[in-house]
């Protein structure tokens, strides 16, 4: 266990933690935008895997990573549009609609995967982005490897998350977004279309979830399997609550969970006195514990999950 005292060990853990965090953080930021408008999207897992599949298929067909990422985003937007039509347009119960979207997403991508690649002799792979190290900074202790020895996709994704976080803090649209999720009547009275805001927030949020799925498959793995997102969408949903609907906290939580996951892999080979299955369960246990501690001090959007019915429609 002497390894645990070494800086190099923690440097490596943090680096893989950040790598594991990126796709989940992207999906969680997307879900946060959707939820702040008042829409709970439990179809996140399904949206992520649809983004992952179409992103992979596009990257494989064209041989281009950017095209794959874009395809993942667009696929997510399309799914989000359909979801919004159901829950905003038709005011279907959001829990039911979200669960069914996740079921369709998981089954459909599994079906498409076998159909599309049936004639391939070996499981197809898409090109991976080149690693791009920042000179000097990459050798910083502890954070150097994690922050400055990644691929260009990881830098771009991190930059996008930062821009989104900043934009959400500063812009007028954020006030309208929050109004739609907190007091839709007020947003309506101020002349904003609550349905319009919710449509946009759901489409953009789902697009980011699709991008998150594509980041995982196109940006990191280079292959697709059934159920490849393996619960990341659910973790992202938990992260939104854990981060209390604030981008900074969500990103920090994602890195923390990522590091924990990385730690689990290391512990499997480190110490056999603790069963490795415990570390498989640990990310979920920690999430539950974090939710148990954090849920009391929530600042969840007041109108989350509540369809808005204008008084003239009632």
């Amino acid at each position: 266990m002497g390894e645990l005292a070494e800086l190099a060990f923690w440097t490596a853990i943090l680096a893989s933690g950040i790598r594991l965090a990126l796709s989940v953080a992207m999906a969680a930021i997307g879900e946060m935008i959707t939820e702040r408008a008042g829409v709970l999207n439990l179809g996140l897992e399904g949206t992520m895997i649809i983004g992952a599949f179409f992103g992979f298929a596009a990257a494989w067909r064209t041989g281009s990573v950017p095209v794959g990422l874009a395809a993942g985003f667009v696929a997510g937007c399309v799914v989000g549009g359909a979801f919004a039509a159901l829950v905003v347009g038709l005011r279907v119960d959001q829990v039911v609609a979200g669960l069914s979207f996740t079921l369709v997403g998981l089954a459909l991508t599994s079906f498409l995967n076998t159909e599309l690649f049936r004639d391939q002799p070996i499981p197809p792979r898409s090109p991976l982005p080149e690693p791009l190290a920042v000179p000097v900074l990459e050798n910083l202790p502890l954070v150097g490897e994690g922050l400055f020895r990644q691929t260009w996709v990881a830098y771009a994704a991190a930059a996008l998350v930062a821009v989104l976080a900043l934009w959400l803090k500063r812009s007028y649209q954020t006030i309208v977004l929050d109004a739609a999720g907190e007091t839709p009547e007020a947003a309506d009275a101020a002349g904003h279309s609550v349905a319009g805001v919710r449509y946009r927030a759901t489409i953009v949020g789902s697009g980011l979830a699709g991008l998150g799925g594509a980041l995982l498959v196109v940006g990191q793995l280079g292959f697709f399997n059934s159920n490849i997102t393996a619960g990341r969408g659910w973790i992202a949903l938990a992260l939104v609550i854990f981060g209390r609907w604030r981008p900074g906290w969500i990103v920090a939580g994602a890195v923390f969970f990522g590091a924990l996951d990385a730690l689990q892999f290391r512990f499997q080979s480190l110490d056999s006195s603790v069963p490795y299955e415990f570390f498989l369960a640990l990310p979920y246990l920690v999430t539950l514990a974090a939710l148990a501690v954090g849920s009391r001090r929530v600042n969840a959007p007041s109108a989350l999950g509540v369809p808005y019915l204008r008084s003239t429609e009632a």
Partner: protein
Amino acid sequence: MTATTTTVGAGARARNAVSAGALTTTGAILVALVIGGLLILWSGGNPFEVYRLTITESIFARTGWRDTLTQATPLILIGLGLAVGFRAGVWNIGAEGQMVLGALASIAVLGTGSLPAVIAVPLGLLLGALGGMVWAAIAGILHTRFGVNTVIATLLLVFVATSLLVWATRTVLKDPDSRLPQSRVIGTGAIGDLPWIDTGYGVLLAFGAVPLLHWILNSTRFGYIVRAHGDNATAVYANEERRTLVPLVLLMLGGAFAGVAGYVVLASDQMRVASGTAAGFGFTAIIVAILGRNKPYGVLAAAVGLAALLVGAEAAQRRTGVPVTLMQTVQGLIVVCVITARALVERTGRLARHTRDSHDG
């Protein structure tokens, strides 16, 4: 006189609503099947052939009938438990894990001993119920004591249960005579098959639970609280029902049903606990409850229908090569189409009322 007219009118309206609801659901299922047909066409299959095989192999073939009932049994059991919760607005999507814990609890005791079957089977049912109930209670306490969303809590516990299953079948519950990570066989705890339909006796339990729950939901105080909680939880709490009790009890009830299903599947079909024990029943049962409108007889119909679809799909895969994942997609599409259709019908109903009211006024 007025009162009588109103009652008769209400009765007729209710009957119309029932048939309209059934019509909506049927129409929506047809739409989903057509979309599924297009997917089959795209994958190079013949939709009519695949659907014909699906129906003949699951309903008219003797083995199909048996398999359909075997698959439907856990779906009915879990679906019933979930439906009661959903009816009250208490979301439990972790039945998959609760089912695993039910199976683990019963094999832990029955896998070692040689109790006579008269004791072993009831004990297995009890242990299954307890295992699932305790697992669901964790989520229930996280919800009522710490305010954790039940959807997230129940779901995350599925992943924990899966790890527990892998650990248990690798270590403490492992069959020492086997090289595979699996438990011992259930032995005297096995349920046995009904004569001439070759389906486990568990199917009687499932079918028997349907009218029982129907009665409980519609004719008892408990059922009244459940229904009232779904319509307006605040009103129930205002009436001094303890705030924390309803979600906790309903989660535990759902867990107990899932745990019993875990034992039944173990003792009449799989015989051992291994990594495939829950086999997705816990998630499919969510669809079953939603399609069945959270009503016991609806759950029964949806469970048998979905089981037939999957059993038929497996036969169709063997014969035509169209993968089972297609039918799983169709299952999901059925839910999407059904909830869309129900919302559309409700919306047109509301618009019609609105127009009528404004004309009157």
